[in-house]
């Protein structure tokens, strides 16, 4: 109970710094600080990069491509993006849809393995083998947990995570985050 009381008291303090994004006369404000469209895109790319990395963990280049495509789509749909009540959630949706499109395209393409061509660079297995257990665990989690854990790993604050997850209070987010961390620790304990 004491721990929960600590969480609540800290949440009140965090609420004071609640991120505000609004569109007014073509200017964006965050925590009462003016942000240009370009700055917003940079901010967005930083926040969505961890999730993009997880979605495309097999290839580092793909995560860049995914974020770049998302940026292009956001530039093309600037008005919609800026007028959206939750721009970061909108950007996340575009990123996810992009990823699904890419997967569909890949399915239409003939795989190298299918042609019995030896794979000389298997990307993930060489570079990310040590993370295999963690990735396997993350894959079994829901999208919210995946975003929370990947963003926490990248060093983002709960307020920043809240922008991306959206439709969640800071208290609920922290509870979800703690449970996800416990779940991951237990999962990895079993795997290891």
């Amino acid at each position, binding site marked *: 109970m004491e721990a929960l009381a600590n969480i609540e008291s800290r949440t009140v303090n965090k609420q004071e710094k609640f991120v505000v994004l609004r569109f007014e006369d073509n200017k964006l404000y965050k925590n009462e600080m003016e942000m240009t469209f370009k700055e917003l895109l940079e901010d967005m790319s930083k926040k969505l990069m961890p999730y993009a990395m997880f979605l495309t963990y097999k290839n580092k280049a793909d995560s860049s491509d995914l*974020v770049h495509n998302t940026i292009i789509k956001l530039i093309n749909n600037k008005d919609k993006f800026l007028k959206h009540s939750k721009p970061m959630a909108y950007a996340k949706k575009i990123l996810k849809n992009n990823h699904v499109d890419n997967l569909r395209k890949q399915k239409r393409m003939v795989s190298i393995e299918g042609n019995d061509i030896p794979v000389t660079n298997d990307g993930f297995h060489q570079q990310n083998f*040590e993370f295999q257990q963690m990735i396997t665990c993350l894959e079994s989690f829901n999208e919210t947990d995946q975003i929370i854990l990947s963003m926490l790993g*990248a060093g983002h604050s709960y307020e920043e995570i809240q922008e991306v997850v959206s439709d969640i209070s800071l208290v609920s987010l922290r509870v979800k985050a703690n449970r996800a961390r*416990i779940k991951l620790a237990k999962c990895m304990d079993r795997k290891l």
Partner: protein
Amino acid sequence: MNEEKQIQIIELMDDGATLENSPKLKALIDASKEAKEFYESLLVSESMLEGFFGGERRDQLNAKAKAFINEQFEKPSNVSTINFKPLIGFAIAASLGVIAFTIVNSPSEIVEPVSSVQIAYAEPETMIEEVIEEPQPIFVSGSEMETLWSTASQIANDLGVDKYQVMYAIYEANKDFFVNNDINAPRADRNYFVDLSIIETVDVSFAASEVKRHIFCHC
């Protein structure tokens, strides 16, 4: 180990507590074997998360994304500042005008293209140029002729026609050159035109009767 204790451990770790600097955390971990295992698993998972999503890899990707955004904003816009809509509208209108003009001015009978099977080679016909010489008009000078009858008789002989035909033609074509239109009083100062078309067409008997009538009536 219940969830409450697990959350306590996480919260303490978030606040920077370690086994060395936090007796509270140490007490929680030392309380049970499960707590110790959980703490170790948590350390591993947190370290893995940071290793995969953070560090140098994250910085590289963020720098790349930033460079990409700068590139997008620095490159000239694909949208031209020139408004081509009026120009395109004008071009379409002009094209339609040309098409309409072509249709209106096209021949009413559209000549269908002849298929290659239907085309036959025709030998060029040998053209014989026939020069048709127009007869020169005949004028008779009043000063040069002795009498109208003698002149008419001479022309009639040359043309192979009757003299009454020639007389009739001269009188009909030059009535004004006769004093009071009298066929017996031609003027000497005039040139008389001999109309060959009348000579060719007029009937001999008709010409003779008319000439005789003019001679006797003096009209």
